[in-house]
């Protein structure tokens, strides 16, 4: 007879450092602000993380709602599986992006936000289209639901690996002639470019500390995990806080925390406390899995694997490559920001970036987490893996999971692959030592 044994005890509460707790407060406060926006007469803009124009929206006193972040929050809270199935019941294909289905399913179930309060209907959908076709269709779908205006702000794709004058000109003209006038009309607030400059100045300040934190992973041991921990570090800068004093304070605080860890020779904080000995330094390409986030992370830190750089933490901007929002060129700067987000960069640029990370961060290899329903990230990753391996001589591995659909996370398979990968790294090292 087969006996199914359930978990004996609830998993222990995740250990969080002070910056994580602080960020949690910020996120909660933002969701509370969103939930009560209409009561205060504030307008709500839904927009996407990559290429979001938070500073511009703030110029119109609009509150920023990010559907991907809602899907992530629902993934982390194990709500997304039900929402995805709900959307499929409504006729959405099993093949498409699970962020979209989680969002649609959430709407169908009353649009309750992570704070347990209903999310307000947006007054405008700002479609910052950085080359992801799913975004375009997602907002067409939401438009049907909310019957509100959708502003298309198109970012040309960096197919040839460079930003041209024509690209900037197209984007700045869209801002001047289309995006800003529409936001003025919808919000009833007159655009003030000096206000935008001030927000951009604040963004740049936070961005400096954000980059410092990400680059702290060059230390050995790395004081941070730039993928699992990185998810927390990108929250304020990629979301609703860029351009605010809160973001400046958060990154200053985070930086001091990381400085302290470096001084103490500590590795990253994990949900189970300080990580043990650093055995493997990895670069990771692709988004994480959110429905089994803690279990996934544990597979790494149990083995002493720390992620020293990741591409996912660049989806909302490639600040470590030198970009900063520039108050002296406000609209051009917004355009450059959108053009530079990671998935708007062509595959050769992405390969160069991963190769550089492996070299600069002295990583042992590249791990790709290929997301079932995200073609923007995933199509072409096997070639990227081969290229990076060829150029760096470091081993690479490939796993497949999904963003927020628990049906596509097979813990045993992922663990097996990771264990084999760590063995491969050991063998490479042994070979290197033998040859020396």
């Amino acid at each position, binding site marked *: 007879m087969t006996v199914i044994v359930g978990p004996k005890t609830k998993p222990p509460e995740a250990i969080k450092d002070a910056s994580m707790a602080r960020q949690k407060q910020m996120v909660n406060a933002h969701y509370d602000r969103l939930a009560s926006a209409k009561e205060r007469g504030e307008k709500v803009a839904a927009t996407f993380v990559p290429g979001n124009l938070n500073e511009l929206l703030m110029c119109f006193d609009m509150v920023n709602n990010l559907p991907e972040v809602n899907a992530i929050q629902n993934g982390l809270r194990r709500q997304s599986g039900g929402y995805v199935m709900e959307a499929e019941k*409504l*006729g*959405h*294909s099993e*093949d*498409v*992006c699970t962020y*979209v289905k989680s969002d649609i399913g959430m709407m169908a179930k009353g649009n309750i936000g992570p704070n347990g309060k209903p999310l307000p209907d947006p007054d405008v959908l700002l*479609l910052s*289209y950085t*080359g*992801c*076709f*799913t975004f*375009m*269709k*997602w907002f*067409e*779908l939401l*438009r*049907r639901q909310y*019957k509100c205006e*959708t502003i*298309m702000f*198109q970012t*040309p*794709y960096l*197919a*040839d690996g460079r930003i*041209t004058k*024509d690209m900037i*000109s*197209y984007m700045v*003209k*869209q801002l001047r*002639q*289309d995006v800003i006038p529409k936001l003025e009309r919808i919000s009833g607030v007159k655009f003030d470019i000096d206000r935008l400059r001030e927000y951009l100045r604040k963004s740049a300040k936070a961005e400096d500390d954000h980059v410092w934190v990400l680059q702290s992973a060059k230390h050995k041991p790395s004081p941070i995990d730039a993928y699992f921990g990185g998810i927390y570090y990108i929250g304020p800068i990629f979301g609703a806080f860029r351009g605010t004093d809160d973001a400046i304070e958060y990154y200053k605080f985070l930086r001091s925390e990381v400085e302290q860890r470096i001084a103490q020779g500590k590795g990253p904080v994990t949900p189970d406390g300080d990580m043990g000995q650093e055995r493997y330094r990895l670069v990771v390409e692709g988004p994480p899995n959110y429905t089994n986030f803690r279990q996934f992370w544990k597979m790494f830190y149990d083995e002493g694997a720390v992620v020293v750089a990741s591409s996912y933490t660049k989806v909302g901007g490639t600040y470590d490559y030198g970009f900063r929002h520039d108050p002296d060129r406000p609209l051009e700067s917004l355009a450059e920001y959108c053009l530079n987000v990671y998935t708007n960069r*062509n*595959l*050769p640029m*992405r*390969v160069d970036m991963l190769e550089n990370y492996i070299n600069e961060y002295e990583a042992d290899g590249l791990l790709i987490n*290929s997301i*079932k*329903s995200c*073609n*923007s990230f*995933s*199509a*072409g*990753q*096997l*070639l990227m893996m081969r*290229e990076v391996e060829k150029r760096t001589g470091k081993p690479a591995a*490939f796993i*497949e999971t999904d963003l927020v659909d628990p049906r596509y996370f097979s813990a045993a398979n992922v663990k097996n692959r990771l264990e084999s990968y760590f063995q491969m790294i050991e063998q490479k090292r042994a070979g290197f030592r033998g040859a020396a």
Partner: protein
Amino acid sequence: MLDRPHHTTADIIARCEALFSDLSFTAAREWKAAEPGRIVVGFLPYYAPRELVHAAGGLPLGIFGGGDQLEVIHGDAYYQSYICRIPRSTIELGVSGRLDFVDGMMFPSICDVIRNLSGMWKLMFPSKGARYIDLPHNFDDDLGGEFYVSELRETCEWLSSLTGKPITSDAIRASIAVFNDNRRLVRALYQLRADEPWNVPSAELYLLLRAGMVIPVEEHNQMLADYLAAVRLQQRPIKDNSRVVICGMFCEQPPLNLIKSIELSGCYIVDDDFILVTRWENSDVALDGDPLQSLARAYLHDSKSTPPKYEPDEAKKGLYLVDSVRKNRAEGVIFAMTSFCDPGLLERPMLQAVLKSHGIPQIAFKYAENSGQMQPIREQAGTFADSIKLWSGA
């Protein structure tokens, strides 16, 4: 004696079938070899400015995947499980040397997979040119139009780098004129099929369009004219079929058997989104003024609505399908979307809702270019045709 055309439809379709089955692209190779300095530029299945390739003295070559004839051996090693078939077989065509004579490739902005394929091409075939054709989703002449003109200008520069010669405005105008002829002939073909679907089987129409992807446009124009002349002289038996519009085949191509199966199951296809590049523009492209601006204006204001294109006006969303149903006197819509096709599958619920609000019957299934099992599709399409006959107007 009757004034007979030079060819019968059977002759013409036999030639089309030979071109369709030839995954070595012999006709295009022979065309290139016939004169020194000729170039061949491949493009993926969506809107690509073929006129510019033609104006550069080149042959635009449609690369429409490998269909069900190509065994994908290498291509699968480049893609994980949940990616559609067409990039795999396109890589297979490249890796197996079948595209070794192609001087450059154009990747129109269809979806994230094809977008990333453009970068893969750069990495895998660095000596071949690869050009991503970014398409505007803003339809103001001053915004998206200006951007698209700059994209077209850069495409001209890229083509010039392949030939070593500049492309003149006159050459582009002349090419637009030849392609206008082609568009007119294709429109006539579509009109004839809508009027007499029993006389223009959709598999024949499809093969005719595919042939146009691998031979010079002038030759294709002659072929279309010959077919139109020949088909008007014949009368095939009329069946009691239901008239349907097919939607979803704008990129990855259906196996020929799938098209035949739908018709065999009791449906006449009276409109579709096969090989959209041949009738992307609804009317002729203007021949006066700056030809790049004419192409851009045609794109912005006179082109087909498809899932990869943004629809700025919510009120117009999906109406193109309703219009097609009405104009072609169709009785229902069959959504045949490619597996793992993000734009198509995300669009489908919106289109279905619009059709529902107009009381238009519909069914949906998915396919891949190498789908082999036609029985379920035949049963589904057959049941749909029967239900239309039984219940429409009830």
